[in-house]
């Protein structure tokens, strides 16, 4: 159950009909060309997501958490960040990964079961998916405190500053970890943007049953600002996140951004949302589609045309094909690699263990 539309008080810069809206505190700084780039991101991210969903249905992936409907929240927030910001995802941030430059093939390997750690987090400052609900908020606060100590916060030159953006859902706000992270971040004025994608459901539990107040208002109790933004409006998300990041980078402490959005698909491919929500509710949210409103705006503004859309369509189809092909060719994990994922220099004990295991494994080979 979501709140009635007229009761929603959030920052919106592009309404669902594709019209720009003024807001007293926030404005989108980019050009129409930037907006078109966001549209392309959203279309491709959605295509990655839908192809992965289809791959799961074909038996090629064990599981997939679809992000259908949350493209604006992810693309907008990710595009507001830049190096040396740290991006700490939960497990549904396929759009953020796309923006960070993670090859979508790498996203698939965890869900295909061929790898535990699918990409190095350092080069892009995009960290590994976290499947433990809310635990990554604590990691993010720790990273942010490290950035403070590394002198990456509050410098005169804003380009020298950085912050951590940590992604979590509405359900995670009920976790102790998230609340502890809020407290630590507030106490140390750590440069963290807590980016909560309120997609209305903690699997099947509606957010209204978990919080008596809108989530963004919780921040006030911890002593830092909280802002609610239309999570299906990529312009507003980017503007609000950019402000929040500047706030954090400048050493003013954490910000909670609640991106008010909707998970149009299932929680994961193992879930069946029709068992706990109604078709009318889904229809209401489909009218707020984050991609359609941007397309409408850009077409009406003349910034793009049908040919542009067709080109992106071809591109996304090629991307989907590449995913289909590469997914089945993901290399099987090798036992010998299991010992080299944690330590920079493998300790002798583990090295010996590895030797023993490989000898044991070799004893089984029948060739």
């Amino acid at each position: 159950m979501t709140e009635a539309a007229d009761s929603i008080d959030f920052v919106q810069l592009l309404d669902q009909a594709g019209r720009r809206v003024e807001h007293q505190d926030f404005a989108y700084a980019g050009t129409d060309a930037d907006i078109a780039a966001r549209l392309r991101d959203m279309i491709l991210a959605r295509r990655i997501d839908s192809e992965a969903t289809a791959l799961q249905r074909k038996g090629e992936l064990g599981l997939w958490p679809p992000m259908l409907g949350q493209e604006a929240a992810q693309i907008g927030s990710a595009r507001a960040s830049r190096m040396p910001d740290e991006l700490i995802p939960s497990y549904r941030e396929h759009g953020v990964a796309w923006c960070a430059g993670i090859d979508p093939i790498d996203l698939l390997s965890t869900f295909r079961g061929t790898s535990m750690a699918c990409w190095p987090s350092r080069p892009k400052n995009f960290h590994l998916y976290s499947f433990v609900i809310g635990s990554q908020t604590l990691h993010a606060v720790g990273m942010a405190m490290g950035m403070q100590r590394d002198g990456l916060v509050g410098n005169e030159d804003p380009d020298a500053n950085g912050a951590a953006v940590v992604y979590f859902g509405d359900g995670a706000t009920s976790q102790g970890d998230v609340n502890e992270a809020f407290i630590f971040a507030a106490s140390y004025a750590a440069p963290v943007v807590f980016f909560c994608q309120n997609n209305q459901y903690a699997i099947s539990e509606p957010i209204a049953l978990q919080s008596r107040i809108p989530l963004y208002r919780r921040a006030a109790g911890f002593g830092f600002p909280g802002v609610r933004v239309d999570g299906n409006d990529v312009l507003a998300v980017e503007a609000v996140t950019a402000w929040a990041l500047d706030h954090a980078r400048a050493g003013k402490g954490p910000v909670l951004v609640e991106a008010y959005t909707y998970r149009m698909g299932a929680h994961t491919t193992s879930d069946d949302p029709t068992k706990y929500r109604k078709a009318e509710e889904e229809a209401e949210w489909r009218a707020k589609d984050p991609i359609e409103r941007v397309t409408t705006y850009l077409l009406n503004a003349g910034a793009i045309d049908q040919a542009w859309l067709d080109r992106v369509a071809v591109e996304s189809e090629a991307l989907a094909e590449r995913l289909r092909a590469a997914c089945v060719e993901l290399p099987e994990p090798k036992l010998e690699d299991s010992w080299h994922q944690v330590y920079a220099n493998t300790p002798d004990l583990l090295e010996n263990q590895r030797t023993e295991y490989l000898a044991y494994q070799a004893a089984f080979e029948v060739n």
Partner: protein
Amino acid sequence: MREFKLPDPGEGLLEAEIVSWKVKVGDQVAVNDILLEIETAKSLVELPSPFAGVVAEVLVAEGETVEVGTPIIRINDSVEILGETSEEPLVEHVGTTTVTGNVQDDLGEVPVATPDASGSMLVGYGAKAGSISRRPRRATGTVSVSGPATDQVHESYDTATPVSRHTDDVTPSSPLSASPSGEQLPQPGRPAREVESGRPPLAKPPVRRIARDLGIDLTQVPGSGPGGTITAEDVVTAAQGGRPSTGDRRVQLKGIRREMFRAMTASLNVPQATAFSEVDVTGTMELIENLRGRREFAGLRISPLLVFAKAACLAIARNPEINSSFDEATEEMVLHGDVNLGIAAATPRGLVVPNIKRAGRMNLLELAQSLNEMVAVAKQGRVQPGDLALGTFTITNVGVFGVDGGTPIMNPGEAAIMCLGTVRRKPWVMGTGEDERIEIRSVCTVSLTFDHRLVDGEMGSKFLADVATIMSDPGLSLLF
């Protein structure tokens, strides 16, 4: 020719039911076109086609349940010779340009991943890259914007029509008030100790587990933990029959009580049987009234117990086994020449059983005097060890407590104990034949517990019947 095997659409599911086919033999299908709908233990899902081509064969009928991994459909991708089964990898190499989101400044010139047209088109849908057939777009309004480039997939996973049936009608819960509502927080300080009645017992799950394993009812276990919670120790104590500390008083068993404990425990080594008899004691009550009026009995307390004691002594004369004991050393039964008649007495210090020596040789007056003396001594707590020793038979008068009867336990070393219940006015059938009628009479229950090793059922019953006869008609004592 391609074969699509039933995938596991959930996590660790083993089988699924084929609900409906969305394609039939001869249909042209593209990659990601929906082929069929299946129902698993978790949900109803649609399965998209991994292949493009023509449906050659549907291998499983609707309504059938098949295991994961079972081939369910054959699709002719018109690349290989019909009928030849393919063991090649699902997809051969498709050359592409790596596309990631890093590129964002080249709006006008979007990099496009293009299939490598020069080769690797031997199998699979790679050959169809760039020419994927799509359903026509719907024209809606001035600006037609449908799901960009991915209609087929989106249509199968979007929420326009539910992917599954509603298994039940979900009733949305009303939103909570958006304003914080201030519930009173618990007051500081120690919570009340006592456990309210009707409240479930407070115990942690491991403690509950211990209680279940030991067969202990937690509601019967007083808690000694904080706030009256039940600890594992409490449960173990309860299981050992002990009483946990809370609210309990511990009394060291000393003296008389310790002796009672010892004697009664020792008595349980003896196989015992109990017989009952309900007796019309109206005659006894009349006799008592008579005796109370006589001068020689003046100042003596006369109760049914006196007549009962006398009756026992008389009946013992006819049934000597009742007044016997067992000599373990010689394995001999000792039939006592005298009746040392024990009377169980409740005293402030506990149960004592002093006995009237040689009671069988006493007349009624002597017996009454001895009884009175003994009761007085017992009440004063001045019973001497000699009064307690050498008893041969015991009477217990539970009637003074208003109870109807009981199964007494023998004094160790004796062969029987008799119990006198309270005397009540009760309807009683009198007379015989046409004279039969109900009258209100004084009635009491007597019972006899005997050592079944020395006294058999016949002996015990005869003795009890003799006592009952005298009690009901004291005049018949002349026969004894």
